[in-house]
């Protein structure tokens, strides 16, 4: 791969075509219409084209590629969940991640760092032992370690957390990684584009034509498309789309904020998460500290960030790493997280025939990008849910069969 880069140095003109084809017009019909050109939607398009040979596919995007939660998350990839459904699903995703750079021929800066979830209370430690056992049972590397292991991996940490919430131990997950999130959307998008999938940016869905309980077409800001299959992969905009097809779900939207510091010398290799202090932190390849906290406390369909968030997060950060007090915050932002009551996604079929959902990804969607694409492509083609996602169906709520993944949410929401 590195030799290939020489072409860029030696050529006067840029030696590669543009990453995406731009299409002037929508066709009048497609086999599949995917709403949302984020990681999940583009991954589904990619696997429809590569694994199922379905290329007459259109991806509609209101804004730009990867401009939603794909480009707003804190890029953490892990599979140390709590329920068997969750562990199996995310583990498959981690496996897919590892080969993705090669599949795309695009550097995703996938970096295996190791992931510590810190426990400050006995009850947190108890949940971690439980998680570690479930993980090990399904072959996922996960173990409970003592405070000394945390200190060794991150020597700058104050193990007492300013004296008020001492670290008693941690759940260590060796496969925990980070990747460059935009590149994931670009890689899937380019892969799909090259195989004939059309990606239409700046194209908003205005309505969905449902007749006799079946999808017939999609009305967009650039004209009408007829189709029998629609996949909705729009994260924080899911309730707006669901209103068009009159499907009721438990999804509610809360903003989730994050921020980065100015770039500093590399000092933090692992990813650290503290549920009690509502902090997660990792250092990017550029040296920026990427930091996030818990959800904003009330429903809001907007992506404005707040000073309250920065104040709260930095005060907890300084409990863990007092030496960061002079480091500046460079950017802050928010994404709209589509939350569910059991902290598991809602995927698969809906009461409307031909309308498929990939939603409820709340604060945990980025890591699942590859496996979501793969399982949703399978679900669309076969019209039955992929075996890995049967536990995430919408009807689990009417059957009172919730999944119960809250114990593994990265921070206590």
């Amino acid at each position: 791969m590195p030799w290939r880069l020489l072409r860029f140095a030696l050529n006067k003109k840029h030696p590669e075509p543009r990453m995406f084809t731009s299409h002037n017009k929508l066709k009048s019909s497609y086999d599949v219409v995917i709403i949302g050109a984020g990681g999940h939607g583009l991954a589904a398009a990619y696997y429809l084209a590569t694994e199922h040979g379905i290329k007459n596919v259109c991806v509609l995007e209101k804004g730009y590629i990867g401009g939603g939660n794909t480009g707003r998350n804190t890029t953490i990839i892990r599979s140390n969940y709590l329920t068997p459904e969750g562990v199996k699903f995310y583990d498959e995703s981690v496996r897919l991640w590892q080969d993705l750079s090669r599949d795309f021929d695009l550097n995703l800066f996938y970096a295996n760092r190791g992931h510590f979830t810190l426990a400050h209370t006995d009850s947190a430690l108890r949940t971690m032992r439980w998680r570690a056992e479930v993980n090990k049972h399904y072959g996922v590397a996960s173990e409970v370690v003592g405070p000394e292991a945390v200190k060794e991996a991150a020597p700058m940490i104050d193990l007492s957390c300013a004296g008020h919430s001492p670290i008693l131990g941690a759940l260590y997950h060796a496969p925990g990684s980070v990747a460059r999130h935009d590149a994931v959307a670009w890689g899937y998008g380019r892969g799909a584009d090259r195989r004939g999938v059309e990606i239409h940016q700046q194209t908003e869905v205005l309505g969905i034509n449902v007749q006799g309980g079946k999808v017939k077409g999609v009305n967009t800001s650039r004209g009408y498309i007829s189709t029998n299959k629609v996949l909705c992969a729009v994260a924080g905009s899911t309730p707006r789309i669901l209103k068009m097809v009159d499907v009721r779900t438990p999804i509610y939207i809360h903003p989730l904020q994050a921020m980065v510091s100015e770039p500093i010398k590399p000092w933090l290799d692992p990813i650290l998460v503290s549920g009690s202090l509502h902090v997660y932190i990792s250092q990017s390849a550029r040296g920026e500290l990427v930091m996030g906290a818990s959800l904003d406390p009330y429903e809001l369909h907007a992506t404005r960030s707040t000073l309250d968030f920065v104040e709260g997060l930095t005060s907890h950060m300084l409990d863990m790493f007092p030496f960061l007090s002079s480091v500046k915050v460079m950017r802050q932002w928010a994404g709209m997280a589509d939350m569910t009551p059991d902290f598991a996604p809602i995927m698969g079929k809906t009461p409307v025939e031909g309308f498929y959902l990939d939603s409820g990804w709340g604060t945990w969607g980025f890591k699942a990008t590859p496996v979501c694409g793969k399982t949703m492509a399978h679900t669309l083609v076969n019209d039955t849910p992929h075996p890995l996602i049967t536990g995430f169906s919408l009807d689990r709520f009417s059957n009172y069969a919730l999944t119960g993944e809250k114990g593994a949410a990265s921070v206590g929401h």
Partner: protein
Amino acid sequence: MKIMTCPLNGPRPVSEFFYWGEVRPMPDPDSCTDAEWADYVFNRNGAPGVKREWWCHTPSNTWFIAERDTEKDIVLKTYFYQGDA
């Protein structure tokens, strides 16, 4: 800092308040079907718009209703519950 007006204490920082979701009529648990009850327990009106919501001013434990535009992030009105919900 965002400000919310408590009907009892006047304008206060929003961090003093607790949000308890949209005002929703509860079906009669004795006469409704399982499906209706599940719909009440789990499903929400998630689309953006002007909503009537329960809020509480936590230092004074004052519960009240706020009418809020969840897309524009504007509180339109706050008042005490009148027994009409």
